Structures are given as structure tokens and as C-alpha cells.
């Protein structure tokens, strides 16, 4: 049975970002249903039973996260939308923001209703100029039509949204760094506990959700948890998912498929296979740059949270990166390590000092100044970062290093042994 696009159903239609187009295709009906038929608690239950898991990277149950909010109402609750999307190879939220902002907005309003929040923050990556403009317009339209502001659709529930632009730091996508940044401070991740659900923005209970997560909430609002939970690989990997594919692939882009779609099917059938017919798949990182690499031999996997975990990697933000046999793994890791060294917030010792060290070793290996012991050293440094940092950024660099070395140790050692990058040497560079 062919899969009907749900999250991207409006993408590609001209003017899809305008509220009229959205309403014409049945938009905001889900919100109406929620406001009419659900109490906030019941909608939290509904989202819980849908099986929806966060699309921002960690894959935590959205309904459960909402359930962590304290019962008392002494302090206001906030919803922060994480639109900072800055992971290399991940560009799915951007598509939703630019092409179907009201799908996201409807989910935001329904979610805010569920968690009884009257003020939401939309934290958008600084470089997303167009997305910012489009989303701001969508917010204004929604206000004008009574989907935002006081007493939405006569329900008595009110919500305002504050747009906030990031200033170019990947780390501000980490939820607690995002909160610090929103508060006007340096984007430093906080130590947890306390978790944001208890002590979040301005010390108040706060929920942070990814853009795509909230778009999924719209789907649940429209057609209910039971319908939603049947999509994908129930019971734990439900719903549609946006998958990014980039690298040596014929048609890089965002593809929608139910969770559990086979990676090779996505690559070969939807994305047209490898870019160069003569250079087959060497490796892929299906979950995104922060996740562990899979050599081609292990790429026959299903794309969902639990299948990828079983395969030794993670779904992450589903920013799949495809590498063909013309790729130098050491060079690829160096490229990645440079990004992480540049983006480390510098707060905690292992990440601050370790990322820079990793880069320098990789530079030497790639340049032809490597030593045999460098290969083990890379893995050892990664091991000393992993698990010992303030935020998961530490793992975001440790996992790639550890897995690239583990899966392609021979290639690293060859760099050291030959005192050169073998691929470059072959190409006469």
C-alpha cells in the first residue's frame, strides 16, 4: 500500500504557506476538535497513547514528557519550540517551517492547550531568514483569524507566540542551552537535574519540543491516537517521519515515510540510489552527523528508533548522510570533528579540550604525519568524553569518533602506516 504523505501533504503546492491554502485543505480542523472534545489532560493522554516520540533527536515519548510537568499552577508554564535545526545533514524542520508553517502552528496551539500554557516561544535558527519571515507571517495570520490570541475559537483558551532568533550556535539547539539563550544569556547547557519540565525558562515549568514533533501533534489532533498509532512499526515506533538524505546520493532531500522504512529502500527507491554508478555505498550515518556510522554491510536496517538502536546507532534527527567508496573516512571524520570543535560551547572540560585535540590528531593523520598510536588515542579520547560531559554534545562527537575508528580501523591505520591519505595518494593529490 502506497504511503500517503501526511507531514508533507501540502509541500509542493503553490502558496502552501498561506493560511487560506492551509484552511482549504482542512487545516485547523484538528485544533477545533481538540478544543471541543478534549480537556487538556485527556489530550495529553491521547498523545501518550499515540506513541509519538520526539523528533528532535532523543526520541523520548512526547506525552510522557508533558506528563512530567508539576501539578501545581503557582508558576506559568511555557512551551518552547525548538526550530534551531543546525545539525549537519538535517534540514527537515526547515521544510515544514517554510512550506507548511500552519501545520506546525496548529500543533503548537494544540500542544500548548494540552499542557495549559499561554505563552509559547519559537526559537528559530538565526540563519533561517526565510523561515523566520514565513513563520512570523503565519503567526500574524493565525492571530487575525482567531487561532491565536485570547479565547481561541471561543474555547476560553488563549495563546501568544514570541519569535526568537538564534545567533548562530549549534549548541543552542540543546534544550537547556536554548533556554539560556532565550533568557538572553550565553548558550550554555544547564546541568540536569532539574529537568526543564520542573525548572525551565525563567525558572518555570517548560516543555521543549521539536518542530516536527509538533507537526505530528496536528496529525493526532486531526485523526486521533488510534489511527496514528497504526502508522509505522507499532507499538513503539509510530507515525510518519521526515528523513533527510545528503551526501553521495542521486537526489538529496527530505523524504517522508512511516517509521520503520528500510534504509536501502529509502536510498535506492526514493532518492534514486547512489550519485555515481561506479561508486557504491561505503558507509552511512542514517541518524545524522552525531550518530554512529554504519558500514555498507550493516546498512540493511529499518529506520526507526529501536531498529537503529539495535543496529548500534540511533535515529537521531534522521539527517542521513551517505558516503560512497570515494570517501576517505578519516577525512570525513576530520570534517565532522572540525564542526564539533567549533561548536563546542566550551563549558565543560572533556568536550572543550577533547574536541580540539581530536581535530589536531585527525589533521595529522590526514596530512601524513600520523602515528600508529594515534588511532587508539582517538578512540581513547572519545571514550573519556563520552558520558562525562554536561550535555549530550559530548556523545555527539564521541560516538562518531568511536564508531568511525571501530568500523574503519584499517583505513585509519593505513593513514598512519603510509604516512599519507591512501585515497589522495591514489588520486595523485
Amino acid at each position, binding site marked *: 500500500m502506497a504511503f500517503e504523505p501526511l507531514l508533507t501533504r501540502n509541500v509542493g503546492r503553490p502558496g502552501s504557506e498561506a493560511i487560506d491554502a492551509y484552511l482549504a485543505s482542512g487545516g485547523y480542523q484538528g485544533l477545533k476538535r481538540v478544543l471541543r472534545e478534549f480537556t487538556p489532560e485527556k489530550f495529553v493522554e491521547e498523545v501518550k497513547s499515540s506513541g509519538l516520540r520526539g523528533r528532535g533527536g532523543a526520541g523520548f515519548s512526547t506525552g510522557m514528557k508533558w506528563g*512530567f510537568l508539576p501539578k501545581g499552577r503557582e508558576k506559568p508554564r511555557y512551551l518552547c519550540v525548538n526550530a534551531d535545526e543546525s545539525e549537519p545533514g538535517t534540514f527537515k524542520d526547515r521544510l515544514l517551517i517554510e512550506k507548511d508553517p500552519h501545520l506546525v502552528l496548529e500543533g503548537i496551539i494544540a500542544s500548548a492547550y494540552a499542557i495549559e500554557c499561554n505563552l509559547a516561544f519559537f526559537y528559530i535558527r538565526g540563519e533561517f531568514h526565510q523561515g523566520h519571515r514565513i513563520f512570523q507571517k503565519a503567526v500574524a495570520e493565525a492571530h487575525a483569524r482567531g487561532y491565536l490570541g485570547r479565547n481561541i475559537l471561543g474555547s476560553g483558551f488563549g495563546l501568544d507566540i514570541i519569535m526568537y532568533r538564534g545567533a548562530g*550556535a549549534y*549548541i543552542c539547539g540543546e534544550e537547556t542551552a536554548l533556554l539560556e539563550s532565550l533568557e538572553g544569556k*550565553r548558550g550554555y547547557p544547564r*546541568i*540536569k*537535574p*532539574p*529537568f526543564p519540565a*520542573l*525548572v525551565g525558562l525563567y525558572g518555570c515549568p517548560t516543555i521543549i519540543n521539536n518542530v516536527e514533533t509538533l507537526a505530528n501533534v496536528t496529525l493526532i489532533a486531526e485523526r486521533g491516537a488510534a489511527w496514528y498509532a497504526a502508522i509505522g512499526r507499532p507499538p513503539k515506533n509510530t507515525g510518519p517521519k521526515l528523513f533527510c538524505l545528503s551526501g553521495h546520493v542521486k537526489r538529496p532531500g527530505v523524504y517522508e515515510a512511516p517509521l520503520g522504512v528500510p534504509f536501502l529502500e529509502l536510498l535506492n527507491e526514493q532518492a534514486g540510489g547512489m550519485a555515481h554508478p561506479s561508486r557504491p555505498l561505503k558507509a552511512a550515518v542514517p541518524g545524522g552527523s552525531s550518530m554512529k556510522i554504519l558500514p555498507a554491510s550493516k546498512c540493511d536496517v529499518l529506520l526507526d528508533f529501536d531498529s537503529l538502536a539495535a543496529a548500534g546507532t540511533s535515529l537521531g534527527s534522521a539527517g542521513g548522510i551517505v558516503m560512497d567508496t570515494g570517501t576517505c573516512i578519516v577525512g570525513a571524520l576530520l570534517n565532522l570533528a572540525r564542526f564539533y*570543535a*567549533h*561548536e*563546542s*560551547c*566550551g*563549558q*565543560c*572540560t*572533556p568536550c*572543550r*579540550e*577533547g*574536541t*580540539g*585535540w581530536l581535530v*589536531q*590528531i585527525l589533521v*595529522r593523520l590526514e596530512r601524513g604525519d600520523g602515528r600508529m*598510536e594515534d588511532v587508539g*588515542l582517538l578512540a581513547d579520547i572519545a571514550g*573519556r568524553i563520552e*558520558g*562525562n*560531559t*554536561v550535555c549530550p554534545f559530548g556523545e555527539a562527537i564521541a560516538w562518531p569518533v568511536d564508531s568511525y575508528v571501530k568500523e574503519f580501523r584499517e583505513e585509519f591505520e593505513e593513514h598512519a602506516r603510509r604516512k599519507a591519505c591512501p585515497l589522495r595518494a591514489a588520486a595523485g593529490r
Partner: protein
Amino acid sequence: MAEPRSCEPRFSPPPHQPNVPAPGAAATGAAPAAATPGAPATPALPQAGPDEVALLIDDRPVVVRRGATVLQAAEKAGILVPHYCYHPGMSIAGNCRMCLVEIEKMPKLQIGCATAATPGMVVRTNNDRVKGVRAGIQEFLLINHPLDCPICDQAGECRLQAYEKDYGRGESRFVEEKVRFPKRYDIGRSVLFDAERCIKCTRCVRFCDEVSRSHELALFSRGDHAIIGTFPGRPLDNPYSGCTVDVCPVGALTWKPFRFKARVWFLKNVPSVCAGCARGCNVNLAVFRNRIHRMAPRPNLDVNAYWMCDAGRQSYDSLYSRPRFERPVVRAVPAAPRAGESAAAARPLRESPDPRAEPASLRDRALDLAAGLLREAARKGGPRALAAIVSARLSVEDLYLAKRVLGDLAGVARLAVPPHEEGEDDHLLIRRDRTPNARGAELLGFGAPSAARVREILDDVAAGRVRGLVVLGEDLLAIPGVAPAMVERLEALIVIDWWRSPTVDIAHVALPACGYGEFEGTVVNCQGRVQRLRPALRPPGEADPAWRILRDLGRRFDLTNEYAAPRAVFDEVAAKVPAFAGLNFSALGDLGAPVPGAPAGGAAGAPAVEA
């Protein structure tokens, strides 16, 4: 009667805010972890009170108050969890990761500084896993460190050194280029910054945000280029900037006046109290070869917590900038100054008044002369002909004997204490009363410092009604409106002071007293807390503690007590002056004790002092 509490220090932020444990993790009264069958039996947990938790750290049972962190619990159990960024007087940053420990049932290591101790928790601070991580943190901290320990002021007191010795791998696997940063960067009035030595623990930043509340410092840049800095046009310059140097666990921030002055391992730290204002911050005097090289705060949560002001920190400078006089000085008396000899032509007493007498010491003869002059003035002018101006910079012992000898025995009718006020009380420690013992003087019956009472005496001096004046520890000529001509009519001007002030030069008899750090005694701070000054230096020449000079002067007025030491004087004060009742010199210890009636205790719920 309860004293007003206006002087009680209020330290913010609340020193300890361990993070709320994860939901469910801190179920109150949770049963202790059951021992795994077959595993060696773990020691039983002790009984914990309602506001306490009992846990096991390295198999040692320990009970702490609820809300204490694992690091604090370990400290209580006598186990050091190494740490850089944690400081008991500031908020928790959790960034250095040196305090990672293993906690049963938690897959990842947890930072001891921010993890609340929960009932039945089982903590390991010293197994191979923890040790491996520590060695890793040490290696990370040192890869970009310049390793210039031989020329670093912090060497010997540096945590990087100490922890490397205890937990490091002893060698580095780092063969790359180090990140270069500015060295000897002039970051503020008295502080120099070496960015290459900095470990980015943010203690200095938090100090300026939370304690001094001056907000000069911040971290700039990211990753391994992160660097502490100031904002344009706003250098590190607050009244407490020296504390950033104290809290810096490494040699990144150094105190300009102390730079390259001494190797710290040669310094002897003498616990004492700052005499710069009425707060009486607890300090250590760092002494080498009979010279103070550094004064740094000594933790006392009831008084100064971990801090002191910059002015106090350098208050010992005057010891080395002001002229001293090492032997008693007398002006030729009773003969009037000869023509052409100015009043300033005082000279040490050389000849004995009576050549046939036993050769008495210079000091004895000066004291004889002083007593004689005072007697003579009283005989001629009657009871109101004698007065004294007494400094609140003197110790309780000095002041007590001043009252007893001058007031009771020598017939000095009026003793006045001049005020020394400057600026305003601030939010933290600084008091506008710049004397260390005004409260003590008051409790001893001198009344509050009063410019009016001093003025009254001086008017009577000018009018000739006061013929004999004793000045203890004050520079008479520095009192506004006082000129040498005004005191010319005095028949007896007796001065006891530690430095050769202009007043010493016009005195009939002047006796050299000990300066700061040269004598033992007690002072009472603005909170009513009695604290001990400890001798750290040998006084120069014949300089003597003021109480001893007064005692010996007293002997000329039939004082019979021996008062072998300040302790003896103090214990008499405790016995005779109701305000001091029940106090005991030995029991004052290093942290002092409140006088009865003064509010007890300090910052409520204050944490244990860092080792």
C-alpha cells in the same frame, strides 16, 4: 537584651542549591539498596533523622542534612572528592567534571557537586572507573596548559598540581600545538590574568556576579578558544577583586602586590583578623622572614564567609610605608625649649636625670618621666586637668588597661575615642567604621566613638584647662582642626603609638608600640564577636604591645597585677566586665565567639567550610 542585627552578614546566593533529584529518584525514606546476594556484605546504614539522609560512600556510612550534595556528604565522611569549579560560597556550575563519582543504579558517573545525597545511595569515589575519568580530566586540563609552574605564583597552592600528583597519569599523550592565549593580561586594577593557565571553571565570573555583584567578568568565545574577559571600558575593579584570585584554583588570576614576592611554601600562615574595619574579616597572615607578604581571607561563615575586601587585604602595607620609631622618645623637660629648638626636635632620652642612680633602662626612665609629668599636671590643675584620647584600633586588652591605669589609677578624668568613618556600609562586608574594635571600646565603657567628646577635650587643651594629655594610638595632629600650636601649652603630652606620627614628634614622652601583626590580643567586631589577633611578626627595637606599656606605666601608679600575657588581661575582663561575662581567652579559638547578648550564629544553614 537583643542587639540590633544590622551588622549580621548576609551572603548570597544561598551557598548551596543542589539540584532537585530526578523525579522518583529521591523517594523520601526509600529503603537502602539491598545487598546483592553473594556480594560481600555492605555496612549497615545508620539511622537518619527526619531532615537527614543516610548513605554509603566508599563503604563508609554517613548521615547528612537533606539537601546536602554527594560531595559534601563525602567531605563529612572524610573523603575528598577532587573538584575545581565547586566553591561552597557560590552557585554550582558543574563544568569541570573533576568530581564525577559512581553512584549505584546510575549508568553514567554523576558530578558529586550537584547531585543531592538521597537515602540509601551507594557512592564510590575511588574505584578504577572514577580514577580513570579523573586522570582523563587532568590530561584534558593540561593539554593546552603552558606548564609554566616554575614562574607561577600559584605553584604550591595550585589544584592542577595537587590533583595531578594524586590522580594524574603523570605524562601527556598530547603532541600537538597548544592553543595560545594572552599572558600577563592586565585585567583589572590589582589583578593580572594569564589566560593560558585558566581552566574555565568560572569561579571568578560567578564571584563577580553573585558575591561582589559587580559583573565585570564573563566567558567569551567557544570551544577550546573560550576565554575569560571583561567588557570594553570596564576592567575588573570592585572592592573585592582580590577574592577572584583566592577562588581561582590555578595560577590564572594573580594578585599584583603579591606577584613574585615569595614562594608560597616558604610562607607561614598565621590566623588573625583584619583590622581594616569593624567587620574584622578572618584572615591568614602569610609571613616570610619577619615580613607579611600576603593577607588572604580565612573562612568564617559567621563573619566574612570566604571573602575580604581589597583595602583590608593590603591594609598591612602601612606597616612598611610609615616610619617607625624603635626606642622611647622624650622631649627635654621640664625646661622650656631653648631658643631655636623647635618642638619637633625631640630626641631619644640619653642621660639619666640622676647620674648616680642605677643605670635604668631607657624605657623605664621614659615611663618614670611620663608618670611624673602626669602627676605634676594633676597636682597643678586638679581632677579635670588630665584627659586621654584613645583609639578604637587598640585591642580589648589595651583598652581595658588604659581605662584601669589611666582612668582609675592616674586620675585621667576623661577618655574619648575618636571615630574613623569613611564611605558607607556596603552590601557585603565593608563597614564605614574603619576601626576594628569600636564595639569593644563601647563594651568596656568608653562610650561610642565621639568626635564631640574629642573636640571638648581639645578645646580644654587649647584653653589651658587640660594640662596633661595621653594619646593612645591616634595621630592627634591628623584630627581635623588640630595644629601643633594648640597643644603647645600642654605640660604633659604622652603618646603611645606604633609609628612615628607627627604627634610622636611633639610629645614630651613617646613610647613605641607594636604594629599590626606584632602583638596578640582580641577585638570585638560590629556584630559583637570577640576575635583573636595573633602575633605573626617580631616587633622592631623596643616596640612593645600597648597593654604592656600601660601595665608598666600602671606600676608607677601602684598597679599590682602582673598581667603576664594578654590572656591574663582578657580573663580579668571576662571576670569583671559584665558584657564579657563567661568568655574565656582560650575558648575563642580561631573563629572567635559572640559576646553574651550579641546575636549568635551567622548565615543560617551555612555549609561546612571547605578544607
